[in-house]
């Protein structure tokens, strides 16, 4: 590669990442601004953080969003693992094409469509069966779990298709029942993907404004819904403080998870290597 070309690539990266990170940095910087006006710097202050932790409405909404996020992520990991297994390991089954459609659909379908259709579904269900009684946390969890199951299915599927099936086949040949093979062989191998899927579901749930606005009922406002109602009225340094806290938490979470996953993957590969060496030392007797 010539020097001129690598300089060009470097310039592209510098500008690209400046574009991606500039707005986030500006959010963080102005969260420490003394002034009420976000874009005029008048001095360093942490008063907006104090105001944030005293704001009952935001704290309540944050607590609701955290609960919804955790429950959603747990449901999505179970459902998505089953979905990924079905697509990657079960070969053809009746209705497979429809199922792949149901999995890729939620990834790209505009939020307004998902939100409106789920709300109308809940209303119709309630008319007919009496369930769900009222809308709020329960309906938001169902709505979020639905698109998160799709995301986790895709993650688990691609992880499974990148793995050698011979370990699972060997366990089956040795007489282990499929359920046992799943819990002792497959599950440890896809654990990093499950962790990534859990975190992604949690973040997507915590981030969703549009779908939650449709399916929520009176009294249940998630954090994005409260932020949106404040942002609509104009820019507020308190929102900047909230953004800074979220960015800090996410950065720490992503770095820690990345590190843990990287280590687990290296250990797994080392284990496979040593297992292969042991197998090589003792030729199989047939």
């Amino acid at each position: 590669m010539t020097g001129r070309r690598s300089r060009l690539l470097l310039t592209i990266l510098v500008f690209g990442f400046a574009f991606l990170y500039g707005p986030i940095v500006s959010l963080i910087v102005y969260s420490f601004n003394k002034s009420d006006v976000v874009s005029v710097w008048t001095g360093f202050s942490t008063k907006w953080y104090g105001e944030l932790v005293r704001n009952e409405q935001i704290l309540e909404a944050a607590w609701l969003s955290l609960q919804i996020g955790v429950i959603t992520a747990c449901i999505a990991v179970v459902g998505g693992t089953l979905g990924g297994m079905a697509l990657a390991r079960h070969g053809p089954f009746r209705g497979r094409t429809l199922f792949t459609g149901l999995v890729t659909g939620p990834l790209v379908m505009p939020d307004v469509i998902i939100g409106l259709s789920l709300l109308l579904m809940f209303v119709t269900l309630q008319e007919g069966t009496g369930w769900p009684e009222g809308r709020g946390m329960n309906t938001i969890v169902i709505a979020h779990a639905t698109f998160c199951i799709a995301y986790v299915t895709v993650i688990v599927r691609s992880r499974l298709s990148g793995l050698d099936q011979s370990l699972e086949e060997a366990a089956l040949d040795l007489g282990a029942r499929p359920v046992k093979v799943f819990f002792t062989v497959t599950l440890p191998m896809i654990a990093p993907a499950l962790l990534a899927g859990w975190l992604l579901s949690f973040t997507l749930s915590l981030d969703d404004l549009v779908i939650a606005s449709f399916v929520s009922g009176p009294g249940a406002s998630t954090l994005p819904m409260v932020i949106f109602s404040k942002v609509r009225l104009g820019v507020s340094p308190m929102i900047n403080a909230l953004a800074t806290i979220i960015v800090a938490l996410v950065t720490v979470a992503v770095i820690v998870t990345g590190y843990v996953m990287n280590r687990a993957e290296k250990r797994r590969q080392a284990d496979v290597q040593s297992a292969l060496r042991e197998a090589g030392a003792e030729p199989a007797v047939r």
Partner: protein
Amino acid sequence: MTTALDRAAKPDGPAGRLARAGGAAARWLVRVTGRGRALVVAVPYLWLFLFFFVPFLIVLKISFSQMVIAQPPFTDVFVWAEGWLPEIKATLANYIWLFQDALYWIAYLNSLKIAAIATLLCLLVGYPMAYAIARAGPTMRTLLLLMVILPFWTSFLLRVYAWIGILKQNGLLNNALIWAGVIDEPLAMLHNHFAVYLGIVYSYLPFMILPLYANLEKLDASLLEASADLGARPWKTFLTVTLPLSWPGVFAGSMLVFIPAVGEFVIPELLGGPDVLMIGKVLWNEFFSNRDWPVASAVTIVLILVLVIPLVAFQRQQDKAQQALE
């Protein structure tokens, strides 16, 4: 030497205990349902069918009903009177309304135009970045990829909000440009189409870069060398070798940006202002402000019809790419 398998299988280890508990639960389910294999498919299938597919049928039904002041605010399409078959009281009034009012036409066409241009801009920004990341060293590559994903994990709403502070009348950008002497009067950068394009490109850029990178990373360097050895100039190599080979990534990335962008609500609402008409905003207002659920349903059905071709094309390509790996 202990392997991951031994550790996990050790009966008194945490994984062993978990496996026993999970195994017992699963065996019970298998006994109850008869077939374990079917259960694995059935649980996610039924969930997605019930909460993703069936709702569309209900929207379709309600789009043929009339608005009433009641709870729920629409009439029944199927009326169970006497006899076995329900009387069907469907009306096309909502669709006729959509076609007669130019507002909806303009909103649909404008959404398609904005999404298409924003997708193209995203590609123009994302392709060079994905290419540069794929050409970096292995350690650097992991780091850069992490840096592309990181903004995607932070709140979408807050990242859109950040642009308000940058673009507004006395915002950061105007202040910086005036300070630098480039302009004398602040530019109107917020509440117009420019701000919406910027917002979409910014928010959806990671969705464009990731599939492109996944494709460009697999690109066989020897093909590029062969092309260069045969005397092709770098630009020609790019246009005749790199670009065609990365087509699946271009397509997947473009669909991941285009389809959700057509129905985008948050970006036109916060950055676009009243002049930027997009169908997501129309749908939102029809539902939350006018409380006309039947018309909102008809708007949704037409939007799904508009998106059905790109949706099916995207789903086919994704499934084909996955099956190639399996």
